[in-house]
Structure formats: structure tokens, C-alpha cells
């Protein structure tokens, strides 16, 4: 008797510990969610600061990073606390990112500073000090701005420095004079050779094979100097060409006595061109207006340069041209024809560039103007084959320092302008004018005209490709923290989100001017307002604060670890704080899924039975606020306070869905049932055979064994849309493999219809859904309750493939009837 009492006490004590353990795991999960929410808010604030609407300083950047560091550290701690230190490497990952962020804040160049070469695929404005404006401009044009530009890689400032140092050490710089360096004596350091060769292989892999290359030297930063010497080289001669280019770097530095200046080399695909030229901002005294000056010359005859003047706003009309007379046998542009024969026998009027091509060049320049805050000097080439402009160089002019604003008469500029709409949120400040085009998710981005203004109902992420071509974007719904807003800021496209009635008031085809900072749309092209862009208060890549913020965000915002099922989803692949947060979030959910395994004896002492109107024994363990405080040893459904549990029970107990009659079992079913494997139902909890729900106010973890199948439902429903999720797993059945597979297919189809991401392996169905409003999740949980009741023992009845569709239709019909009953009741 004493022994029995002792055993009971021990069991009771162990059980109490288990309950505390489960509660502790759940508390850590909740903590991760709270930390996650705050970290994402903070990241959004930092990202929004790029949009130009906020005034911030270094103190903001420092305090934001400091708080973010603390939050991420606590996330790593909490995940390890709930998983028995399974993710200890997360601390190293956090420490690495933290060190990078602190280095950037302290004025460092970040982890790429020591790289000898960098591919264009990772370059951005913030890395300009490492690779020069030439490389960054080409990379940005190609990757971010969707403009035609060659792919390639940079030999970085560090690579150039290594070359100079090694040659000084080797004595190949005779008497220390860098300008005496001759290529045959120079040594390309082994590390640099290896880096160049590696980059070349990667470039060829990206381009689908070897290609002719161009090697160019960049010296100086903001001094108007850029490419010096353009040489087309065969890939086999690349190392030699790079050595020549680096020698040229040394000469340029020595000539300018700027030993520590910014020198870099660009290695990119060669562009086979028939015409080359430039486009830049100019002032026409004759017309008293700022215009775009385009020059063009045959690639093999640079002395035969022609000049064109265009309006500097969309649609960039041609104002004036200086066309060089051509020989009678000179080809004209496709579709063009000589106008008249001059007295000297030459043709006049055969311009090298047709109007559409001029417009294309102006559009390229306008995109860079939007990015940089001023019209750069852009060098282009016309590809021989496609006759398209290709960006060859961008030489940024220093952006406005704001002093021009004193002369900007904004009130006068707007005196005659008609305001059509005001409101919404500015997601990216800026002023743009153009033609309105109404856009939906189903439209083809390729058909959207460059320089037009997007008007759309919802700020959907699927519209991102349109932004690369748009002058501005206006949406009726959406906020400044969504994905599309992030892309608009990334591309610096002026945007107003949440502007009511925009589509109704402003039809496709109308010309308007959008002032996103003022959240105002004016009728027509308001030239005087566009002229005020020069007095902009925006942040630009040329501002150090912009560069620092963007550099910081590079290690904070991008989310690359997306698929938790992928083998890439690991601690070691967490490159940013966002990756780390997402990893911890997914793994914390996984830990919760096994919560029933952790609390082994909970069922015996802490579980209370819930009295349901269906023949089901279900035991409930309350982690806190899931069941009414005054409830007794048996719980009634109206005492359930857990939001997800209440929703699920509503569906489960539905009269329409619960199959009360036992399924008809044939002898064949019995034999195949005895024979089948239960391998899929791995690691059943110790309280196998009983159904348990572990609940809290916004949480439910449910393990159900109905007949011979086992289903798990894990869900959290809070006020934060981003944290809501439902995980549903269903496996097993009594019938033969075919019938079980049919039931799995039925469940898959119904889950997919409910927007679940579903995977099926044999009779195992796994469905996940996340990021949804609480109300939508509640509706889904009711459906899952109904589905659980409906599919119970259904495998036995599924004798043919056709029954999958038939039963799906029956379920939908019953669900509809159930809904109408609810509606009627509510009404």
C-alpha cells in the first residue's frame, strides 16, 4: 500500500514537472513570436526610412541596430531554450551578422571589403567605394533597373591594392615609380589570378558559355573620370588583359598623385555595337529650358558625331537635331529614308537615330535620374543584332545639396495646377509625370509602357515587375510596409498607396503628375512642378546616410530561407537577421508540434474530458486561458475560451459532417488492414489511443486518433497576421493502400481549396497555411473540424477513383448547407 502511494506521488510529481515543461515551451514560443513582431516592426521602420518620407540621423541607425541585436539574441536564446540547445550555432550566426552591422556603423566597408573580385550579381550602390561607380552602375542597370547592360565582375579596390603592393614588393615598380611599370615585368598575384579565374567561370556559367569580354579601368570617384581604355579580349587572354588594366590603374594613380584613390577594373561581356553615344542634361539658352542632349556616332567613326536635343520629361519629344550629311551609299536606320540630296552630292536628313530609339535612351537615363536624384551622363551603345540601346557607363553628377530650393517657387509652380486627388500614404517620395495605365495582376508586365504611371486596386507583390518600367505607382489599397512598397523604395519609384477612388477618378490614358511626398495627383504634365525636383528633399544613393542604411539593410532585410522543407533551410544558411528570424519562427513551430511527446504523463493527471455531442473521447490540457477558470473536472464546449479550439470543435461537432454509422468493412479490408504498415505513424505518444488537445487562448495542439488514422493539428491565431499559422497532418486508415491514398487525395484537394500548401506521400497528407487574418483562419479551422468528421473511416468507402471527386462535391455541398445554417442562425 505504501509502495503504491509512493509510486503515485512520484508520478504526480513527474507529471507536475512535465506540465511546467510544456508550459515553459509554450511560453518560449510566445516570447519568440513577440520578439519576432518587434524585430519585424523595427526592420520595417528602417526600411521605410529609405523611402524619403522620414527625417532620421545616425542616432536612429545606431539605436535601431542596437535594439535589433538584442531582439535577435533573445530569439536565438529562446529557441535553444525550447529545443534543448538544438540550434546552438544560431548564436554564431547572430554574432557574425552583428559584427558586420557594427563594422558598417563604425564606418567600415563590411565583409566584402577584403574580396579581390566581386560579381555584378551582388553589387549595389552601397558597395560603390569597393568597386567604383562604373561597376556598380552596370550592375544596378542590369539587376535592379531591368535595363540592358552587360554582365560581368569587378576587380575591387582591394584587388588593385594587392596588385600594387605585390609589385612594389617584387621590385617590378622600378625605383618605386608606378608609372615605370611595364606589363611584361608586372606580376599578377596568385590570389588575384585565382579570384579572376573563379569569377570568369561563374560569369560563363551565368551566360551559358564563353563570351568575348571587355576590360575597363575605373579611376576616381566623383571626379568625372571613369572608363579609361576599352579593349575587347578573348577569354584566354583575360589574365594578361587584367594585368594591363591594373598597370593602367597604377599609371593613373601615379599621374594624379592619388595613391589611395579609388581604382577598380571592370570585366564584362563585350557589346557588339554599330553606334555609340551619350546622353546628359543640358541647358538651352535659346529655348530657356533644360533639355536632354544625346550624341551618337558610328562605332568605327567617332568623328561623325550627331547631336539631338530632347525634352527632359516624358514622352521626351525631339526638339532639335544636328544630323551629319551621309554618303549616298550609307545605310539609313531601318524604316528610314533619305530626305533630300544636297548640292555636294551627300544626302541630308538621314539621322543615325530614329525617334523610338532616342526615346529608349531617354527612358534609360530617366530611370537613373530617379535613382540618383540627378540626370547622370550615360554612355550607351546600339547592339548590332537587336538594335537596342545597351548601357555602357553611368557617370553620376553630384546630387542637389538643396540650395536650389530657395529659388523654387512652389506656390507659384502650383498656382495653375489642378489637384485631382489627395490622400493615401507615401511609400516613396518623389515627383513624376506620365500617362496613367490601369493594371491588374493578370496583365503582362512586358506590355506596360516605359515611363507610364501604374494605377491599381491592390498593392499586390505580383505587380513588382511593372515597377521596373513605371514612373510612379498609385494604389487604392495597401500600406507602406508591404512587399510592393519595399520594391518601390528599392527602385525609388514614387508611390502613393491607399488612395481611395483613384481608379474611378483617373482613367487609363490620362496624363497626370504625381507628387508622392505631398500625396497629391495633378491633372496633366505640370512642368513647373517637375522642375522643382531639383530642390528635392529626398535621400539619394549619393548621401552617406542612404548608403549606410542600405548597407545595413543588406544584412538585415533580405529573406532567402523561404522553404522550411528544403535542405537549404539550415542555421548555416542564415545570412541576414530576417533569415534568422524566419528560421527561428519555423523551428519554434516544429518544437510545438512535438509538445505532446514532451509532456509524457500529462494525460493522466492534468487532462480533463470535454463533453461533446459526438461519440468522441477528447481530453484537454489547458496551458493558460484556454478554458474558463470556473470549469470543473469535465468541460463543456461553452467553457472553451481557446479561439482555435472553439472554431475546430464547431466544425467537428457539425451534425451534417459527423459520420455516425460505422463504415462497411469487407473481409478484404480486414485482411489488407492487418497486413498494412503503421510505419508512417511514427513515434506515437505514450498516451496512444486517447485524443488530446493542448490549448491556450490563441493556441491549439491537437492529436486525434479516429479509427485507424492519426491527425495532428497545430495552430496559432493572434492579432498579427504574419504570425498566424495552421499545420495539419493526416496519416493512416484501415483500408487497403489504394483506398487510403484516395482519401489522402480527397483531403489534399479540400485543403488546397482552402489555400493550404499541401504535400502528399502515400497516405500522409501535410498541409500548411500562414499569414492570414484571424477571421479567415477561424473559418478554415471550422472547415478542418468538418473535414475531420467527414473523412473519419471514409477510406473504407472509397472503392473507386471517381469517388474522390464525388465525395469532394458532397463535402462542399454539406459545408455550404452548414454555412447557410450558421448564417441563418446568426441572422
Amino acid at each position, binding site marked *: 500500500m505504501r509502495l503504491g502511494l509512493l509510486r503515485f506521488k512520484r508520478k504526480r510529481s513527474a507529471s507536475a514537472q512535465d506540465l511546467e515543461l510544456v508550459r515553459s515551451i509554450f511560453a518560449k514560443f510566445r516570447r519568440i513570436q513577440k520578439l519576432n513582431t518587434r524585430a519585424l516592426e523595427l526592420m520595417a521602420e528602417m526600411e521605410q526610412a529609405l523611402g524619403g518620407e522620414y*527625417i532620421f*540621423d545616425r542616432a536612429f541607425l545606431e539605436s535601431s541596430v542596437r535594439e535589433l541585436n538584442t531582439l535577435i539574441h533573445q530569439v536565438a536564446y529562446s529557441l535553444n531554450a525550447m529545443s534543448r540547445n538544438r540550434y546552438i550555432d544560431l548564436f554564431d550566426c547572430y554574432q557574425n551578422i552583428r559584427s558586420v552591422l557594427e563594422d558598417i556603423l563604425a564606418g567600415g566597408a563590411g565583409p566584402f571589403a577584403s574580396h579581390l573580385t566581386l560579381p555584378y550579381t551582388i553589387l549595389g550602390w552601397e558597395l560603390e567605394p569597393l568597386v567604383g561607380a562604373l561597376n556598380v552602375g552596370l550592375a544596378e542597370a542590369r539587376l535592379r533597373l531591368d535595363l540592358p547592360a552587360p554582365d560581368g565582375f569587378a576587380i575591387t579596390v582591394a584587388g588593385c591594392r594587392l596588385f600594387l603592393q605585390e609589385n612594389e614588393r617584387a621590385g617590378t615598380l622600378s625605383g618605386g615609380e608606378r608609372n615605370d611599370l611595364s606589363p611584361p615585368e608586372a606580376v599578377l598575384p596568385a590570389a588575384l589570378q585565382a579570384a579572376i579565374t573563379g569569377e570568369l567561370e561563374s560569369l560563363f556559367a551565368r551566360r551559358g558559355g564563353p563570351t568575348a569580354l571587355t576590360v575597363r579601368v575605373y579611376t576616381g570617384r566623383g571626379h568625372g573620370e571613369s572608363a579609361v581604355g576599352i579593349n575587347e579580349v578573348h577569354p584566354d587572354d583575360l589574365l594578361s588583359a587584367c594585368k594591363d588594366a591594373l598597370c593602367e590603374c597604377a599609371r593613373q594613380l601615379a599621374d594624379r598623385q592619388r595613391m589611395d584613390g579609388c581604382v577598380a577594373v571592370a570585366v564584362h561581356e563585350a557589346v557588339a555595337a554599330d553606334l555609340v553615344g551619350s546622353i546628359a542634361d543640358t541647358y538651352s539658352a535659346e529655348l530657356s529650358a533644360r533639355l536632354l542632349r544625346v550624341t551618337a556616332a558610328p562605332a568605327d567613326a567617332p568623328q561623325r558625331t550627331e547631336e539631338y536635343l530632347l525634352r527632359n520629361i516624358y514622352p521626351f519629344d525631339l526638339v532639335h537635331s544636328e544630323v551629319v550629311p551621309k554618303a549616298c551609299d550609307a545605310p539609313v536606320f531601318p524604316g528610314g529614308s533619305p530626305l533630300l540630296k544636297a548640292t555636294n552630292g551627300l544626302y541630308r536628313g538621314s539621322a543615325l537615330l530614329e525617334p523610338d530609339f532616342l526615346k529608349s535612351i531617354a527612358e534609360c537615363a530617366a530611370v537613373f535620374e530617379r535613382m540618383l536624384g540627378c540626370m547622370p551622363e550615360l554612355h550607351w551603345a546600339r547592339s548590332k543584332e537587336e538594335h537596342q540601346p545597351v548601357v555602357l557607363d553611368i557617370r553620376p553628377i553630384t546630387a542637389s545639396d538643396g540650395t*536650389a530650393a530657395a529659388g523654387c517657387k512652389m506656390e507659384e509652380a502650383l498656382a495653375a495646377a489642378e489637384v485631382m486627388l489627395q490622400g493615401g500614404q507615401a511609400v516613396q517620395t518623389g515627383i513624376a509625370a506620365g500617362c496613367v495605365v490601369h493594371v491588374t495582376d493578370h496583365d503582362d508586365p512586358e506590355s506596360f509602357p516605359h515611363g507610364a504611371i501604374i494605377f491599381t486596386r491592390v498593392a499586390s507583390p505580383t505587380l513588382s515587375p511593372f515597377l521596373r518600367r513605371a514612373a510612379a505607382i498609385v494604389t487604392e489599397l495597401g500600406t507602406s510596409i508591404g512587399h510592393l512598397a519595399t520594391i518601390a523604395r528599392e527602385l525609388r519609384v514614387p508611390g502613393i498607396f491607399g488612395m481611395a477612388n483613384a481608379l474611378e477618378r483617373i482613367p487609363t490614358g490620362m496624363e497626370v503628375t504625381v507628387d508622392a511626398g505631398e500625396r497629391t495627383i495633378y491633372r496633366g504634365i505640370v512642368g513647373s512642378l517637375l522642375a522643382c525636383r531639383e530642390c528635392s528633399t529626398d535621400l539619394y544613393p549619393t548621401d552617406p546616410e542612404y548608403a549606410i542604411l542600405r548597407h545595413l539593410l543588406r544584412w538585415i532585410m533580405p529573406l532567402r530561407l523561404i522553404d522550411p522543407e528544403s535542405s537549404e533551410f539550415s542555421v548555416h544558411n542564415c545570412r541576414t537577421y530576417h533569415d534568422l528570424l524566419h528560421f527561428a519562427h519555423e523551428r519554434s513551430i516544429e518544437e510545438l508540434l512535438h509538445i505532446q511527446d514532451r509532456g509524457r504523463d500529462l494525460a493522466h493527471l492534468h487532462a480533463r474530458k470535454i463533453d461533446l455531442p459526438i461519440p468522441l473521447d477528447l481530453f484537454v490540457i489547458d496551458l493558460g486561458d484556454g478554458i474558463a477558470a470556473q470549469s470543473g473536472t469535465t468541460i463543456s464546449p461553452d467553457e472553451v475560451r481557446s479561439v482555435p479550439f472553439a472554431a475546430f470543435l464547431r466544425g467537428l461537432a457539425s451534425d451534417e459532417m459527423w459520420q455516425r454509422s460505422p463504415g462497411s468493412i469487407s473481409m478484404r479490408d480486414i485482411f489488407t488492414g492487418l497486413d498494412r504498415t503503421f510505419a508512417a505513424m511514427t513515434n506515437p505518444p505514450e498516451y496512444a489511443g486517447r485524443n488530446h488537445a493542448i490549448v491556450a487562448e490563441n493556441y491549439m495542439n491537437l492529436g486525434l486518433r479516429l479509427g485507424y488514422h492519426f491527425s495532428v493539428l497545430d495552430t496559432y491565431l493572434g492579432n498579427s497576421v504574419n504570425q498566424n499559422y495552421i499545420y495539419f497532418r493526416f496519416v493512416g486508415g484501415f483500408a487497403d493502400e489504394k483506398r487510403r491514398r484516395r482519401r489522402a487525395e480527397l483531403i489534399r484537394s479540400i485543403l488546397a481549396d482552402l489555400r493550404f500548401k499541401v504535400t502528399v506521400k502515400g497516405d500522409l497528407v501535410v498541409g500548411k497555411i500562414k499569414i492570414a487574418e484571424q477571421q479567415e483562419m477561424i473559418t478554415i479551422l471550422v472547415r478542418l473540424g468538418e473535414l475531420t468528421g467527414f473523412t473519419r473511416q471514409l477510406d473504407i468507402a472509397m472503392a473507386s477513383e471517381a469517388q474522390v471527386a464525388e465525395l469532394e462535391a458532397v463535402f462542399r455541398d454539406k459545408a455550404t448547407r452548414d454555412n447557410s445554417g450558421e448564417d441563418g442562425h446568426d441572422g
Partner: protein
Amino acid sequence: MSATIQSDNGETRKTQILILDDEPIVCKRLRPAFQKAGYEVETFTDSASAMARIEQKRFDIVITDLKMQGTDGMRLLTRTKEIWPDSNVIVITGFATSETAKESFHKGAFDFIAKPFKLSDILDTVRRLVSANSKG
């Protein structure tokens, strides 16, 4: 809302604003914003120069950061109110606490704005102030 005010001799002139922030980016972005809205603006990134300017000239509105090297914003606020009691001071700071806010208001600040802030917020504050003064 007009950015002009009526001076004592009955003439209309632009509202004059002094901005002090040791972070150049703040001055660089605030100056054109106020100029475009029709105000006359002088910006300073060192507090000693701003203090010297205050001693020379009365500004209708002074916008100052709090935490800076040398003379801090609180000192500029105090001195401004000493010599130009009818000038209005707006405090902007990245280190906002209830104590510094309380102290600022106690010393006569018109408003206290925590960084980061929206450009439209500070423009609205100044418009509000100009409007209140013109009615008063």
C-alpha cells in the same frame, strides 16, 4: 496656409527659421523642405555658430536637436527664450525621453518631436505655430 507673417511695421515678410542639428543630413533635408514651403531658413551643424547667430538676430522659429557636442540644444532653447521670449522653439531629438520632453516644455519649447519623424509632421507643426501666432 501662408508661410509669411506681418511684421511690427505692418509689412508682410517670410517667417524666419533657424535649424540646428549636428547631423548634416538633417539640415540638408529640412532646409529645402521649408524653403519650398515659403520659409526663410538658416541651418547650422555646430551649436556655437547657431548660438552666435541667435545673439545677433531674432528668428521666428528655432528648430534644434538636443544632444550635440559643445552647447546642447537645451542650452540653445534656454538662451533663445531669454533674449527672444516671443520666438518659438521646436525640439527634435533621437534620444527622446519623458524627462527631456518635460524639461523642454518647462523651458518654453512649443513642441517636442522624436526622430525619426515624417517631413510632413514637422511642416504641420510649423504651420500650426505660424497659424497660432497670426491669430494671436
